[in-house]
């Protein structure tokens, strides 16, 4: 399976480019889906350790607001993106030092609580953040060239695809490294990990900071693509959405998050068009169906098909 994965990834990327070419209105949605996929990749790392963060949207919001605040003075994609990632990573490190002491429900709820604190601050300090109206992101450039019109859409799509590919590779290498393998031990028997002389907190902290950086990158791409940021980015349901996509895509493989994100965004767009008032209900039912009938998620289904193809 691992050997087939890069080829699948390549095929998937080409398919995305083809779809974005054929249907320009989908390009915007696919860009957002790729961005969310990056954030979900971070969630996946934490899931490996059996920990579920119900607050990771806060790092996406951090990335997005960094872009919104910095865009007027230095609006270059190649500057803003690393800046958003660094800020999210730094905040993730500070919070992570404290939050990696906790497991399971306390871990989930502390993340949730901190994201709600950020949400409230973004909403209440109107003078700085313009409250729930949000901030419009100033026009951007890439490597000094101003971006406008349909070109901007393609640049953001390309950026999202490139960043997604980079993080996909990083996550893949990380998970087969000793640090990554140790994550699974936190899920099963943390004490034994410590008997081996490995700091469980340290292992979890690395994953946590990495996941914060990924979410920060995702938030930055979302802000640069939609050109508008609001506190809702940090709201707990946004965090729930990320966990939702992780399960939808399947926690088994590193491609899962992207499969999940594309599926999720497409369901969302079509559900919103088909039944405007109950798209949330449609998503909830889809989630239930996946959990009850396809526990491996989209990735699990594809992996199963591939295995069967190889057996015959």
């Amino acid at each position, binding site marked *: 399976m691992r050997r087939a994965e890069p080829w699948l990834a390549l095929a998937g990327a080409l398919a995305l480019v083809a779809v974005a070419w054929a249907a320009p209105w989908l390009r915007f949605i696919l860009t957002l889906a790729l961005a969310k996929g990056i954030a979900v990749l971070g969630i996946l790392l934490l899931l490996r350790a059996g920990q579920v963060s119900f607050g990771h949207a806060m790092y996406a919001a951090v990335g997005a607001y960094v872009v919104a605040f910095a865009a007027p003075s230095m609006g270059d994609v190649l500057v803003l993106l690393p800046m958003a990632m660094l800020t999210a990573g730094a905040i993730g490190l500070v919070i992570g030092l404290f939050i990696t002491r906790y497991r399971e429900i306390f871990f989930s*709820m502390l993340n949730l*609580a901190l994201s709600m604190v950020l949400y409230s601050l973004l909403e209440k*300090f109107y003078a700085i953040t313009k409250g729930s109206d949000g901030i419009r992101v100033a026009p951007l450039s890439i490597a000094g060239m101003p971006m406008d019109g349909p070109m901007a859409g393609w640049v953001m799509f390309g950026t999202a695809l490139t960043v997604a590919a980079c993080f996909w590779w990083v996550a893949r290498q990380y998970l087969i490294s000793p640090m990554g393998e140790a994550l699974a031990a936190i899920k099963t028997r943390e004490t034994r990990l410590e008997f081996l002389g490995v700091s469980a907190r340290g292992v979890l902290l690395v994953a946590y900071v990495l996941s914060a950086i990924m979410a920060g990158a995702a938030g930055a791409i979302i802000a640069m693509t939609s050109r508008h940021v609001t506190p809702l980015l940090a709201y707990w349901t946004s965090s*729930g959405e990320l966990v*939702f996509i992780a399960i939808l895509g399947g926690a088994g493989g590193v491609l899962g998050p992207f499969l999940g994100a594309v599926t999720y965004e497409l369901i969302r767009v079509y559900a919103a068009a088909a039944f405007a008032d109950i798209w949330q209900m449609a998503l909830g039912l889809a989630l239930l169906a996946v959990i009850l009938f396809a526990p491996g998620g989209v990735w699990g289904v594809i992996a199963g098909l591939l295995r069967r193809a190889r057996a015959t």
Partner: protein
Amino acid sequence: MITWFDENGLLLGLALLDGLAYAALVFMVSVGLNLVFGVLRVLNVAHGSFYAIGAYAAASLGGMAGLPVWASLPVLLLAAVLVGLVLGPVIERILLRRIYAEEPVIQLLVTFALFMILEDAQKLVWGVQPVSNDVAVRWLGTVDVPFAGDVIPFTKYQLFLLPGVALATLVGLAWFLRRTLTGRVIVAVTVDREAATAMGIDAKKVFLLTFTAGAVLAALGGALASPTTSLVPGIGAQTIVLSFAVIATAGLGQIEGAALTALLIGLGRSVAVYFAPELEVVVPYIIMVAVLLVRPQGLFGAAEARRV
């Protein structure tokens, strides 16, 4: 109102009385969530939806034509019991029963999906316009509370009824869990599910009973809150997040602990409303983080032995 704002003491008094009513509502919801988590080991995200549906149902039932004013209070209870008795057993049997053996992440997500479904269901039934019905509050009237030479009218509903009901729930629940056979069976399942089952306790029945009780408590919290505010989409989400904060602060599986923490957080938020309005929403989480920094297992939770 304005002239009192110089007097900080007076303001504090107002905040405390307001906070008491608010804490009572918070307690009703979080104690149910805590009970369900203690027994089923499932953190029910849809618990907030029970609160919201209880509130909407109470407002609708109470708003029916021809209802005598004195009935406005019993109707609140009736609405809550109806909502809890219908939704609780149905959801436990159809959905939760399938996932008791799953990982916590999956359980959390199943209830999250349920929350999404119920959220839209509310919008379908009650629309997105604010709904309000304060007959019960107006019928009970107000009482003048003397304050530093001034007299402030407070609604009896908030001053007596809400804290009274919460206190009765606390005492009743503690008595039920410790003194009755059914209550002790529930506690036994909470402490050690396997041993309890080995003793011949029907865990399935206990789960069904507890989940229904939790749903009724949440719906009652919502029904009691309904005359004091106008109902808009999103109240379920607010409530569940706040209840999470309460039970994580209190420590899991604690009834009295949940009551004290609800009081702490309720008063804290209310004081913030008067003295630092922009921090209002943040206060519960600040309290929670502060408590968990010092006591990682929560204020009243017992430290768990590490698994080997």
